[in-house]
């Protein structure tokens, strides 16, 4: 055999081995698809029809997963899909989950739905894009997956075709998705930790599974991998809001210090210390306000066990005296009427700014966004008529001065904000 042939043979063998590895990494942990139950007569289908309790649980779980948020177009029929989701790799369109035969899940079997949820494959076996957080939903139990399926089956069918994804090459291709899965996807149902109590385990199941909190609040790497609590990476930014790390006691983690307040925030969208804004408002409106307080508390218990130790004192860059004086004047002029001269907020109307982690967290982007975007906390059953905040379109220098002053006032000692940061955040 010539040297060239041997080289070619070797290369082919390596390629075959890599392909086999990729295939194995993609298929491990995935049970063979269960066959469809035999065609049912009216009598047997009545006997196997889901009971009311299952349907109610399925509806609740759909809330916990906030399925409708992505799978409903603005102003469109619930769960009929079509919402465009911008990703760094292009635009993804969420599918139609209603039981329409041609454009929805009408022809799917329960086993195919479970495989999609837990293993990220479509009905035809093709790999789904990981904007659908099957990387989290893989933890969902079989009983819960079936309850979700029962809930989706009873929705009114809506005939609405989903546009194809508009992803840049090669991100949407099957080989690229296979490589992504091999790198980032670990299938497996949730296993309770016997050393922890029931609340912690319930919280873990909801946070890591259907809640898929870390999909936004866990950082991502350049290929969109990660999405794990405390996993590092770049925090996800949507619509110029940043999802602050939940494990950071100086950022969103600070909300976990008082679990009563945490539950109230997720239930109503606002407490005396915080108002939910940006993409999280959608989560509160569509998901957490509908969840049982015990579940919200359990999520807090679980998340609190992941808090990183507080960071040591940081070396602060010098604050500019002129900026502070200017910031103080701007606060008095624009902010104090609502948030109070001491940043104490107005109970039931405007959150306190003194001691507010959105003001002091290392990354100032949400503070800047809150000032420039304004808006309302989500309207919820617990807070149906929120007080709004105007959008303050301040010049860069004023915005930097105001933010710098807010981060130094009332005992805060967060780093100043420069005009360049303002420019980048806008």
């Amino acid at each position, binding site marked *: 055999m010539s040297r060239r042939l041997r080289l070619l043979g070797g290369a082919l063998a390596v390629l075959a081995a890599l392909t086999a590895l990729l295939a194995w990494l993609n298929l491990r942990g995935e049970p063979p698809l269960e066959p469809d139950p035999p065609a049912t007569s009216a009598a047997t289908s009545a006997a196997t029809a889901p009971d009311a309790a299952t349907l*109610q*649980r*399925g*509806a*609740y779980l759909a809330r916990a997963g906030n399925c*409708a948020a992505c799978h409903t177009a*603005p*102003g469109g029929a619930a*769960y009929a899909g079509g919402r465009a989701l911008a990703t760094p790799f292009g635009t993804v369109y969420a599918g139609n989950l209603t039981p329409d035969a041609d454009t929805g899940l009408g022809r799917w079997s329960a086993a195919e739905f479970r495989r999609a949820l837990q293993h990220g494959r479509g009905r035809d076996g093709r790999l789904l894009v990981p904007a659908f957080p099957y990387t989290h939903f893989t933890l969902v139990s079989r009983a819960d997956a079936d309850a979700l399926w029962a*809930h989706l089956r009873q929705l009114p069918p809506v005939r609405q075709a989903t546009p194809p994804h508009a992803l840049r090459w090669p991100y949407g291709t099957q080989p690229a998705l296979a490589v992504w899965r091999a790198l980032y996807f670990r299938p497996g149902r949730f296993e309770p930790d016997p050393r922890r109590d029931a609340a912690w385990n319930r919280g873990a199941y909801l946070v890591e599974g259907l809640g898929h909190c870390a999909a936004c609040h866990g950082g991502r790497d350049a290929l969109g991998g990660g999405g794990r609590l405390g996993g590092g990476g770049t925090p996800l930014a949507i619509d110029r809001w940043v999802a602050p790390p939940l494990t*950071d*006691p*100086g950022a969103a983690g600070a909300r976990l210090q008082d679990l009563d307040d945490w539950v109230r925030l997720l239930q109503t969208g606002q407490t005396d210390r915080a108002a939910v804004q940006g993409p999280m408002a959608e989560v*509160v*409106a569509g998901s957490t306000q*509908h*969840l*049982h307080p015990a579940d919200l508390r359990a999520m807090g218990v679980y998340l609190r066990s992941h808090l*990183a130790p*507080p*960071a*040591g*004192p*940081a*070396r602060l860059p010098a*604050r500019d*005296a002129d900026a502070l*004086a200017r910031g*103080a004047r701007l606060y008095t002029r624009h902010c104090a009427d*609502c948030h109070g001269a*001491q*940043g*104490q*907020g*107005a*109970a039931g109307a*405007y959150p306190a700014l*003194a001691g507010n982690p959105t003001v*002091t967290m*290392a990354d100032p982007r949400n503070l800047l966004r809150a000032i420039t975007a*304004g*808006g*309302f906390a989500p*309207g919820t059953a617990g807070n*149906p*008529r*929120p*007080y*709004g*905040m*105007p*959008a303050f379109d301040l010049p860069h220098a004023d915005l930097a001065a105001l933010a710098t*002053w807010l981060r*130094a*006032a*009332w*005992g805060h*000692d*967060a*780093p100043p904000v420069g005009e360049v940061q303002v420019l980048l955040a806008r």
Partner: protein
Amino acid sequence: MRPPQRPPAPPAARALLAALLLPALASAAPTTLPPAATTAAAPHRVPDTLAQRLQPCMACHGAEGRASRDGYLPRIAGKPAGYLYQQLLNFRDGRRSNATMAGFLAHQTDAYLYEMAQHFAALELPHAPPPPARADAAQLARGERLARQGDPVRRLPACTACHGQTLAGALPTVPGLLGLPRDYLVGQLGAWRTGMRRAIAPDCMADLARRMSPEDASAVAAWLAARPVPAGARPEPALPQPTPLPCGAVQTPAPIPSAAQPARPAPGAGR
């Protein structure tokens, strides 16, 4: 990324830290910073009124329900509540396109949107005189003819056929056309043509806007914007006659929500 916040330090450690840091800070920042509240700050209260809750609206729609005499943003004070409510729903649900409006309204309930609409509909504020017309006499004459008589050739009905003889609108869903900036009016006719502004189907204004030439739109907007608003102008209690075109916004106005009703169809209650 670690925040630079310190761990909660005991008072003695905090005092020591302050003593160490103060000289550095003092040299950099002689401004006196408001101190951390050692005792709870005095409670701060705000009025429990819709006017207070809806402060963000006023930034653009003005203390008098309008932004400025000749800006782009429309006056909303005194428009029919049914019309305003439909527009709030349209912004929230993507039938009208404005990022600020969509962001503000994205997660508000139907009931709250209706309250907002009623609040602004009930505002009775004086109108400022219109700005000088930015069109020549021929254009203004063309605009007036379109507004009062329409154009049978293009199958354009008169504006007054629906918006009332005084163009002050008609309850519950037809808005007045006077006291609005010219640029806003041109912008809306353009948005209807391109599908950027939509209403409940059949969308009569979209049909009309597509029958108008750009010159028509410009002329009618210039004439409307230059008209003074008559003192005491109020929307007519009802449409004077059936609409010349099928009009979803008029024929099937959005149902009035009951205050207790949640906004979105609730696919599931608590477990």
